[in-house]
């Protein structure tokens, strides 16, 4: 093996890679909060007394969790415009697919978290005259949010990794820039290794924090 590594190509194209990191971060920063919001609504739907709403919410969760994210993305970019008559830009299609996909997982976290609280908490709060939305906001969520934190951190990590599939429909994020640069520079080894390292540097702190958090919460509950 007499390959000579040449990382000058990374240094020369640093601004382009940095722009890619910016787009990746943008996708994540929009899709994650949006996914949590949709996730809460779906979780509440799944718990609702109405049979049809419950079935629809559970169907939504199953649908988005059992189809590969890349197929969802391709569907929203190529098939969705035919249904709606509106052509989405690659960026919007990617945001839509990433958000809806992550929201299905988020709703499962919310559902599990809310279900983990003893029924007595609900009954007590209702008994002193609170409405259901008040119980949820003032009694249930403050208690379970902390418990859900590690799961949400893991979800954020999965989402960060999933943003890379947006490159397939030509969103100019980190993976796309890395591939484009490795093609023009004829240095795929250095370029793709650098891209992998950049992703690791972006994502690993989150994973590390999630691990710490999980350990601390486990200690406290003992």
């Amino acid at each position, binding site marked *: 093996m007499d390959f000579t590594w040449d990382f000058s190509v990374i240094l020369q194209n640093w601004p382009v890679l940095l722009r890619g990191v910016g787009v990746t971060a943008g996708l994540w920063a929009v899709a994650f909060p949006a996914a949590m919001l949709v996730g809460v609504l779906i979780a509440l739907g799944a718990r609702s007394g109405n049979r049809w709403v419950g079935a629809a919410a559970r169907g939504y969760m199953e649908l988005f969790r059992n189809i*590969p994210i890349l197929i969802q993305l391709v569907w929203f970019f190529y098939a969705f415009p035919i249904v709606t008559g509106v052509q989405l830009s690659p960026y919007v299609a990617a945001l839509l697919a990433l958000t809806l996909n992550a929201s299905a997982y988020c709703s499962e976290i919310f559902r599990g978290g809310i279900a983990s609280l003893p029924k007595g908490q609900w009954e007590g709060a209702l008994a002193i005259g609170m409405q259901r939305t008040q119980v949820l906001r003032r009694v249930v969520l403050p208690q379970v949010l902390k418990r859900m934190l590690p799961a949400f951190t893991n979800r954020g990590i999965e989402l960060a*990794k999933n943003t890379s599939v947006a490159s397939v429909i030509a969103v100019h994020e980190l993976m796309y820039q890395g591939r484009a640069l490795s093609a023009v520079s004829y240095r795929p080894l250095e370029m793709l290794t650098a891209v992998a390292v950049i992703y690791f540097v972006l994502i690993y702190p989150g994973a590390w924090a999630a691990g710490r958090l999980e350990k601390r919460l486990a200690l406290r509950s003992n």
Partner: protein
Amino acid sequence: MNYAWDFSGVWAHRDMLLTGFVGTMKIAAVAIAVGVVFGIVLATLRLSGKRWLALPALWFIEFYRNTPPLVHFFWAFYALPVLIGVSLDPYVAAVIALSTQSGAFFAEVFRGGVVSVERGQWEGARAIGMKPHQALRRVVLPQAMARMVPPFIERSFELIKTTALASTLAYSDLLYQAMQVNSITFRPLEVYTVVAAIFFCTLLVLSIGARALEHRLGVHTRPQGA
């Protein structure tokens, strides 16, 4: 919205989609098998008790768990051949990418299972005169196995979904074949909806099978938020 659905084009090219489906299942099965081998090796290194073996294995696992799967595909296809001087076809590159990343996850599943068995079990087995490998095989592993099954199945499902990324290397999986059918029929809505439905139904059937298996083994307790 008065779009007239027309599935005749998709139906006419059902043999192409079938080829893709077989391709997806094949690569998933091979990658799980190779991934298990990788996972066992990595878990053994992690549990070896020797720092110079455990630490590289830990960093390998952490690196693969915290980088996007798509990067592994492109790296295996475009970068690895430069390093080893042999060009790889899409199938081999995809298997390498899938099995290394799932190996990293499987390793943690295996290690977690072994670690979860209490110390007393080890000590007891050693006290009655078993050698370490005997204690592992006869006492620890049978107990650890049951705990490994649910997360192992979870990871295998993730792997099956990840195979769709192999289409980006032009490997003839279900998604790649669907793209070909689409370029013939110009019916993206029908083609991609059918492909999504095929994936959904396949995973549904597999998950029913997995649940039955877990039930029979008496291990149907999935960890929260996994």
